[in-house]
């Protein structure tokens, strides 16, 4: 008799109990798989927003800039540095940063002006894809600017409206000019939404009288390169400048993202412990109901290890069936959650975490780990839960087992 076939038949001898047990396992596993996918989607969305829209993987500044941001603290040869980064395989783009006051009609607001190299910036940032009204910057229209959504509302301007911007130029003169709102961004980050004004680098240079240099380089890393290794390489390339990773720039967010993994494992632990207790109870019942039968098996020569193996096989069969059911059920669930997602707009229109906006449609992300970790943990818990009753059945003396009623 094949032990697997024997175990399979034993699983189905108490059909209802086995089905209830497997249903509990499947449900718990399905929830864990979906939870993992949704957390991955949340983390992925947060990371994408942060890296693709706001930070890049790394940023390069002149050494004193982060301590004392100033219009005058510039990377002196951004062109040379960009060429070296290009050669090393790091997409990068220079930005200019200044502040001022914007006014339209009776409204005014403090603004942060960002001068971007329109062509290059697309290789490091996807902000140009997040224009909800109008269009992104066009070097052919240097007076066109793109505003954060909340700033546009504050100033009560829309596409085509005029905007006066005032500041102090680098030569000490009063900088003031009339710009035309070319586009309005959807919320990508609190700072951009509240005060961001994007303009072409040429317009910025002319407005602030900054003919050369750049305040910031946004650098991306090739997907296969680890962040720390990439940062070390970029530091070598940009010797004399300050290179900071997104983790250096947003330590709280980095810490939060790290702790989410821990929280996820904690959640797994709680749910699987509950399932483990249910399973332990079921396995204890299943074993104690059949103590006499185990006595017979031992009487006819089945070894203690044989009894242990049989019970563990029965648990494994139930676990594998539960895994199959949960995996199958997860397919349509993920088909929905990765496309339509969970619409959170009813709860809040603008959701942000530490200043970074999140898409109000919460979508899941699925990868190998989405299945691997929950299934592995499930199998470990099931093995642990089955081990105790299986061991007890294995060590009981045949005569005691056969007297059991």
């Amino acid at each position: 008799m094949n032990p697997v076939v024997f175990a399979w038949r034993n699983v189905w001898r108490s059909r209802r109990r086995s089905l209830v047990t497997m249903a509990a396992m499947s449900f718990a596993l399905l929830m864990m798989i979906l939870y993992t996918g949704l957390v991955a989607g949340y983390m992925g969305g947060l990371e994408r927003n942060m890296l693709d829209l706001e930070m890049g993987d790394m940023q390069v500044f002149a050494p004193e800039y982060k301590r004392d941001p100033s219009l005058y603290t510039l990377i002196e040869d951004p062109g040379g540095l960009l060429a070296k980064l290009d050669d090393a395989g790091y997409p990068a783009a220079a930005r200019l940063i200044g502040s001022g006051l914007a006014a339209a009609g009776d409204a005014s607001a403090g603004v942060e002006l960002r001068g971007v190299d329109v062509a290059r910036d697309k290789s490091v940032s996807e902000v140009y894809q997040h224009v909800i009204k109008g269009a992104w910057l066009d070097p052919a229209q240097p007076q066109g600017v793109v505003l954060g959504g909340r700033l546009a509302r504050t100033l009560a301007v829309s596409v085509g409206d005029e905007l006066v911007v005032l500041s102090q130029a680098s030569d000490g003169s009063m900088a003031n000019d009339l710009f035309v709102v070319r586009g309005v961004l959807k919320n990508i980050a609190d700072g951009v939404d509240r005060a961001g004004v994007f303009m072409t680098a040429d317009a910025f240079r002319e407005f602030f009288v900054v003919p050369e240099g750049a305040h910031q380089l946004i650098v991306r890393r090739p997907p296969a390169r680890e962040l720390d290794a990439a940062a070390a390489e970029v530091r070598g390339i940009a010797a004399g400048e300050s290179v900071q990773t997104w983790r250096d720039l947003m330590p709280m967010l980095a810490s939060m993202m790290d702790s989410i993994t821990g929280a996820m494992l904690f959640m797994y632990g709680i749910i699987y412990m509950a399932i483990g207790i249910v399973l332990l109870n079921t396995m204890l019942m299943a074993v104690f109901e059949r103590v006499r039968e185990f006595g017979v098996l031992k009487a006819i020569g089945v070894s203690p290890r044989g009894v242990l193996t049989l019970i563990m096989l029965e648990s494994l069969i139930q676990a594998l069936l539960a895994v199959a059911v949960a995996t199958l059920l997860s397919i349509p669930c993920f088909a929905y959650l990765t496309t339509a997602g969970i619409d959170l707009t009813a709860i809040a229109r603008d959701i942000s975490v530490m200043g970074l906006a999140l898409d109000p449609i919460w979508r899941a992300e699925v990868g190998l780990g989405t299945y691997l970790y929950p299934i592995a943990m499930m199998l470990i818990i099931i093995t642990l839960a089955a081990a105790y009753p299986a061991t007890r059945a294995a060590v009981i003396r045949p005569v005691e087992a056969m007297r059991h009623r």
Partner: protein
Amino acid sequence: MNNDTDAVIVKLEGVTRVFTQGKVEVRALRGVDLEIQRGEFTAIIGPSGSGKTTTLNIIGALDDPTAGRVLLEGRDLTKLGRGELSRIRRDRIGFVFQAYNLIPVLTAYENAEMVLALKGAPKAERQRKVMQLLAEVGLEGMEHRRPDELSGGQQQRVAIARAIATNPAVVLADEPTANVDSETAERLLTIMEKLNREHGATFIFSTHDPRVMARARRIIHMVDGRVDRDERRDQHGAPA
């Protein structure tokens, strides 16, 4: 070893078994000395509590004596570990229980085959042997029935086939006819007699059943955990 020693298949020397129930000690066996010869058809009889089943359990390595020695084919079972005792039960002992004790999820064929599979017998040999035994116990055509599709007598015949399948040194049958009607009991005894005669299997019964006693060629009377009388008979049932 001489031939006489070889002929002794089971030997109990001063076997005592004490059970503890709460604070009370129950002496089930009180120094039992016993020898069973190869090929014997022996009944152990006695009133309830006399120690019949305990004796069978100890001979069958299902239970350990509190004191004394138990030798099966010259090997002292009291000195063996659990794994070794499992192998001895698998290879050298067959059991027939009062309550049949077949595995409910296995068919008649699979129940009888299981012991051979545990022993590692090749599939072809298992098939030949099991089919032959099931035919001998009158269960041809019922190989694929599960225990709940068989009558009590049929289940006990499967149990007998299972007990004899590995050509054990000894078959221990604990009240094998207690749960079956007279006709079935007679049939079971005829089968076991035939297997004893043709396969040379040694049978030891624990029984209250006069039909078993009538066919046994040796009757061991037990009283209060001791062998009270040991009676041998010829093939016609007359005292030898």
